[in-house]
């Protein structure tokens, strides 16, 4: 049976390799992606429209802001789904003990983590706030922030991390992230523009239209960062403890 299933794998592999020859060469200026008017428009106008040097952030948070908003909602729904599936799934089942050792948290590990977690969190804020100028942004900064809480949970135990960031607060922060993103969109709608048309925010911010888009992008990135950081920790906390939310790994 295993050998039999290898045949379609090889056939599809050969087909993909054969189709791959039609791809343009890497960095080819004649390739459809480079020749399309959309990319040349972004390359020419991003810096003029939004004053953001990092084109990727401008496209993600401004030109395609609607798309990114629902990506954030997808992350939120993923966290909700994990909670909905795991909550109560382990009721009545005895907790497996075969990989557990009763021991105090290791001194060397906890002290190293004590030193390293502030650095990770400062770096997360830097990545989030500096996403306009250098690679980074809400998703990466949020994941780094969530990872610092997971590190605390791994080196002490889940209770220690949950005492800093309880699940109820996680869910509140995650929802607030989406509310912040949608709120900036609605605010620009109320000021006379379209949904997520950040340039209209110049009416309440003491800056030009271009800089209003720049600062609104920071606002929505913070919203994305909130949601992603909280949901990453919720995912870990639920999966590591089978939804019990105590005595994880």
């Amino acid at each position, binding site marked *: 049976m*295993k050998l039999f299933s290898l045949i379609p794998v090889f056939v599809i592999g050969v087909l993909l390799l054969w189709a791959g020859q039609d791809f343009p060469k*890497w960095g080819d200026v004649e390739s459809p992606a480079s020749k399309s008017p959309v990319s040349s428009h972004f390359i020419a106008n991003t810096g003029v429209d939004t004053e953001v040097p*990092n084109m*990727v*952030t401008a496209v993600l948070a401004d030109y395609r802001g609607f798309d990114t908003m629902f990506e954030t909602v997808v992350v939120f729904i993923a966290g909700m789904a994990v909670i909905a599936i795991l909550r109560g799934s382990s009721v009545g089942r005895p907790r*497996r003990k075969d*990989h557990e050792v009763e021991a105090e948290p290791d001194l060397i590990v906890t002290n190293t983590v004590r030193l390293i977690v502030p650095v990770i969190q400062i770096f997360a804020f830097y*990545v989030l706030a500096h996403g306009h100028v250098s*690679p*980074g*942004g809400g*998703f*990466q900064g949020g*994941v*780094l922030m*969530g*990872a610092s809480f*997971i590190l605390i949970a*791994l080196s002490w135990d889940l209770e220690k991390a949950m005492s800093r960031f309880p699940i109820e607060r996680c869910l509140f922060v995650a929802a607030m992230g989406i509310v912040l993103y949608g709120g900036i969109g609605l605010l620009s709608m109320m000021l006379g523009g379209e949904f997520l048309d950040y340039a209209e925010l110049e009416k309440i911010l003491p800056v030009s239209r271009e800089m209003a888009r720049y600062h609104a992008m920071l606002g929505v990135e913070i919203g994305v960062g909130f949601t992603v950081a909280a949901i*990453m920790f919720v*995912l*870990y906390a639920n*999966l*590591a403890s*089978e939804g019990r939310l105590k005595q*994880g*790994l």
Partner: protein
Amino acid sequence: MGLEIFNTFILLLLVVVAVTSLWVKDLLVSAVVFGVYSFLMCLLWAEMGAVDVAFTEATVGAGISTVVLVATIFHLRRKSND
């Protein structure tokens, strides 16, 4: 020329790592090798100039998803059946 060798090396390593992560019986080893796969993809993207994608792959792919997979595997049987 140097970049060609680098790319070829990473791509060959990617194939080896991808096959290995399916081949091994121990799911924990499989999860860790999958993290290695993500990290190699991250290197490849950084080399191609897509630094934003490389950053996301390093944090989400090699970082969080490996931890989440390992956390899940601790509650499963370690050995895969096929």
